[in-house]
């Protein structure tokens, strides 16, 4: 059973459309939702959680979100960036208001997380660093026994050390507690560290939803001496670089010896797929 199944999620704004977004998060997996700024990552997450009204179906551990909203929300821990709420209130005041909503709230577990994350409950939210805010949001989400963590850019605004620490915590949660995770980010190094699967969204459309390994094996990064060389092999998202041109080629393609190919990173794949997508959009608009 999948932890999360999203089917044909659609939301239309005057200037943006989330277009039939479909993907799954497997149980016990970490899925990274990636895409450039404005690609629709936050809209997707908000649509999943019904923070915005969107068409389409969402089910969590086989339960339909709309039909069993209360049960489903008990299973979800939502971390929207850091903890941006109630800056003037203490962590204790927030916990006291938050915990009664969850019959499965485990106070000793919460206290364990507080000590693990070095959080002091008498502090006010505004007194916490960005990293601490994320940790507090995690402590709240995990103390009610959330089986699925949905996080919207939890690592943006964190320094590299805090990001590393965050990734360690998530990995530990998945390994020890069997939690499933969907988190959006545009920091690809975090994905390389912890993600099992990738959901890649661009201009409101899913361009890839597969395992990280599969995505990385799908393309090779090719260097070309001229644009004509790149065009000759139909390279994807060709762009000028310092020494000639660069583009993606499908891994299963027969590649001639005069083209230099290397393994593509997620960054390479995103940059070139985005470029190809933009070119396609220009052609369609012309």
């Amino acid at each position: 059973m999948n932890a999360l199944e999203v089917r044909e999620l659609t939301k239309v704004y005057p200037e943006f459309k989330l277009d039939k977004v479909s993907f799954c998060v497997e149980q016990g997996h970490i899925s990274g939702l990636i895409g450039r700024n404005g690609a629709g990552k936050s809209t997707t997450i908000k649509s999943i959680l019904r923070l915005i009204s969107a068409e389409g179906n969402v089910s969590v551990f086989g339960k339909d979100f709309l039909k069993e909203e209360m049960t489903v929300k008990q299973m979800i821990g939502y971390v929207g960036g850091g903890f941006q709420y109630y800056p003037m209130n203490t962590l204790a005041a927030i916990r006291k208001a938050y915990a009664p909503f969850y019959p499965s709230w485990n106070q000793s577990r919460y206290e364990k997380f507080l000590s693990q994350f070095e959080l002091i409950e008498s502090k006010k939210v505004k007194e916490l660093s960005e990293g601490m805010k994320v940790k507090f949001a995690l402590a709240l989400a995990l103390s009610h026994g959330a089986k699925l963590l949905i996080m919207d850019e939890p690592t943006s605004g964190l320094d590299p050390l805090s990001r590393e620490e965050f990734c360690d915590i998530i990995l530990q949660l998945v390994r020890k507690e069997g939690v499933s995770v969907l988190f959006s980010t545009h920091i690809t190094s975090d994905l390389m560290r912890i993600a099992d699967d990738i959901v890649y969204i661009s201009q409101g459309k899913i361009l890839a939803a597969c395992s990280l390994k599969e995505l990385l094996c799908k393309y090779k990064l090719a260097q070309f001496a001229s644009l004509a060389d790149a065009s000759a092999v139909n390279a994807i998202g060709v762009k000028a670089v310092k020494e000639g041109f660069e583009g993606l080629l499908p891994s299963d393609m027969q590649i001639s010896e005069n083209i230099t190919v290397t393994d593509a990173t997620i960054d390479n794949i995103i940059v070139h797929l985005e470029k190809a997508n933009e070119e396609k959009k220009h052609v369609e608009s012309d």
Partner: protein
Amino acid sequence: MLNLIKKELRLCLHPTAFIFLFFAVLVFVPNYPYEVIFFFSCLSIFFSCMMTRENGDIAFSCALPIKKEHIPFAKMLVVFGLQCIILLLVGIIGAIKGVVLPAEQYVNQAGISANLVLVGNGAILLGIFNLIFFPCYFKNPDKIGVPFIVGAIVIFLLIGVFIVLRWATPLYSTTLNGLNYENTGAKSVALAIEIVVYGVLSAVSCELSMKNFQKVDL
């Protein structure tokens, strides 16, 4: 629902929501338009909504295991509770004033006396404010100013109407004015009617707010 109400009380209410309740003692001020006391109650709603926005409370609440329409319902139940308290306090303190002050000092030259009908007038003012403010606010919880200004203008116009009625109509200037033990029956009927009107206006406001909030994208 009880948990949501507790959360409202713990995290969302501005201190003025409680402080302004004490403004019920203004009924002891001689010759003052006592209906203004109820405007302070409306002002505290405005402050609490500001606090809700600054705290990101609505987005936080939406992620909790509750139905979306429960959010406006809980917020409004808390407000109705506070409004009932101020109505009760004005009634009680007004009655105390009637007991401790001589009758000639009890009569208000700037509006209706601090009697049961004042409580009823307050209920009408609060009910109308609820009907104007909340459905508009829950259409877009980020915009609090416009619904409040429209609500406040209507409230002050109505206060003006009540003052005119106090001087222009025998019903308000004689029958419904003065101490509670004079024309008690008429005053009680007026109060009962006004309380029912408050209940209906608030219920309609609640229904509209819940409907409007369903369409809000956070």
